[in-house]
């Protein structure tokens, strides 16, 4: 009786050993094989087993998140909401946030910081597309949709009349630009790309235009809130130059190249 039990235990161990070996081999752990050398009887048993199934893929080594230094977050405005001077429902009202831009695209805001309140709602400080340029305010998190992330930044140098697009801090695209004249200067400051417009019929804007959060304090009488755009042109011969009413004009080839690399939400620095 005892010897029968011993034989059974030994057989079980042998099968277990063979299974471990087969599993280890299947997972590609070749280094485990020498340590898991089965006894002779287990080898006989393994001979009778089907070959292990080779896995279709082996996950690579996980990587922790790299630096977030060049990341920016934006969020769509889901519903009309009051923007306050402080993260408090009783704070001064700065403006009403609209879910739509004048071009009927979804309005978005750059997310700057958030404030948690254990007893109340979460507040988010956002960059606003209003005058004076550079305004920020606090809005309830519930008025915003999901966060988008961008790792690009557009820098427009008004002195050299050049625009440079950066990705993760590295320049990836340069282009000469036309900017506002002395009478209608392009406003300096930090803004963001709010929309992308295509397939309209207006040769003077070229094939594509980006809407931005920047507004021209000087250009009065313009429709749709005097927003500064970044767009193509039908007069490339004037570039680079100070020739616009505040908008940033690019050659059509350059604006199309920019479209491939610059997503909506990208921060813009004009200096």
């Amino acid at each position, binding site marked *: 009786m005892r010897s029968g039990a011993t034989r059974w235990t030994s057989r079980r161990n042998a099968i277990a050993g063979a299974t471990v070996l087969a599993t280890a081999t299947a997972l590609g752990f070749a280094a485990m094989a020498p340590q898991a050398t089965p006894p002779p009887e287990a080898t006989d048993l393994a001979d009778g087993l089907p070959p292990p199934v080779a896995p279709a893929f082996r996950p690579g080594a996980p990587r922790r*998140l790299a630096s977030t230094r060049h990341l920016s977050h934006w969020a769509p405005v889901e519903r009309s909401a009051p923007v306050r001077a402080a993260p408090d429902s009783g704070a001064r009202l700065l403006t009403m946030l609209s879910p739509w831009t004048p071009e009927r695209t979804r309005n978005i805001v750059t997310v700057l910081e958030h404030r948690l309140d254990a007893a109340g709602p979460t507040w988010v400080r956002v960059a606003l597309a209003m005058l004076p340029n550079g305004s920020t305010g606090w809005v309830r998190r519930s008025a915003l949709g999901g966060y988008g992330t961008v790792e690009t930044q557009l820098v427009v140098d008004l002195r050299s009349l050049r625009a440079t697009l950066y990705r993760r801090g590295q320049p990836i695209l340069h282009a000469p630009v036309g900017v506002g004249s002395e009478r209608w200067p392009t406003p300096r400051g930090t803004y963001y790309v709010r929309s992308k417009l295509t397939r309209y019929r207006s040769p003077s804007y070229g094939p594509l235009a980006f809407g931005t959060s920047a507004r021209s304090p000087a250009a009065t009488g313009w429709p749709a809130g005097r927003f500064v755009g970044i767009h193509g042109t039908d007069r490339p011969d004037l570039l680079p130059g100070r020739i616009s009413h505040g908008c940033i004009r690019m050659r059509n080839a350059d604006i199309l190249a920019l479209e491939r690399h610059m997503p909506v939400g990208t921060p813009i620095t004009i200096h």
Partner: protein
Amino acid sequence: MTAPRMQDVDRDGALTEAVAELYGCDRAGFIRKATLGSVGMLAILAAPSAVAAGVTDTDILNFGLRFERLQATFYTQAEELGTVAAMRADKQDWARTLGAHERAHVKILKQVLGRRAEGRPFFDFGEATQSDAAFTRTAVAMEDLTVALLTGVVPKVQNRGLTSALFGLLTVEARHAAWARSIVGTNPAPSAFDEPRSLQSVSGAVDRTRFIARPPRTAGRTRPGFSG
């Protein structure tokens, strides 16, 4: 410092709500079970429904990719927003490790699917990535749900090589689930068996969270009215 318990970390609870519904109990019941650890949450699952005819390996892998992207974006966003950095040290390590794993899972599934890989959805986690409590609670529910999903769908995969590889994901996700439960001070292995869920039922639970949102329409065809 006492580890937070499930009932203490409930703020938003969108996923937990959906998971509780999936498991056939109300939210309070889910929280009680998770907190006490006396009744295994997965042990009360109903029998898995059969995967509908016509569901291919590609469908299963693409759903897996969508779900892994959901998780990877969730952990990544919490890190980017500084929510993870504000946590106590052991929770930071937990969140950063899980984030790295989920990103690795996304990468490999995209490689396996190649051109058949679906595009990246737009995610809206609301406040779930912005506070320690909401993040932790959602993570616990998410990891439990992942184990239930993989347990249900891996046996349905036709390609044995894929099945073999997906088991490697399943075991890691099970460790994630146990680690997450340990972080909130609940029983890491509340039941003797994990019951599988079908792809459809997990898909329904994810849909009800509304974490996968319609992308905002930021492009248009209107003639620009810019200053010119």
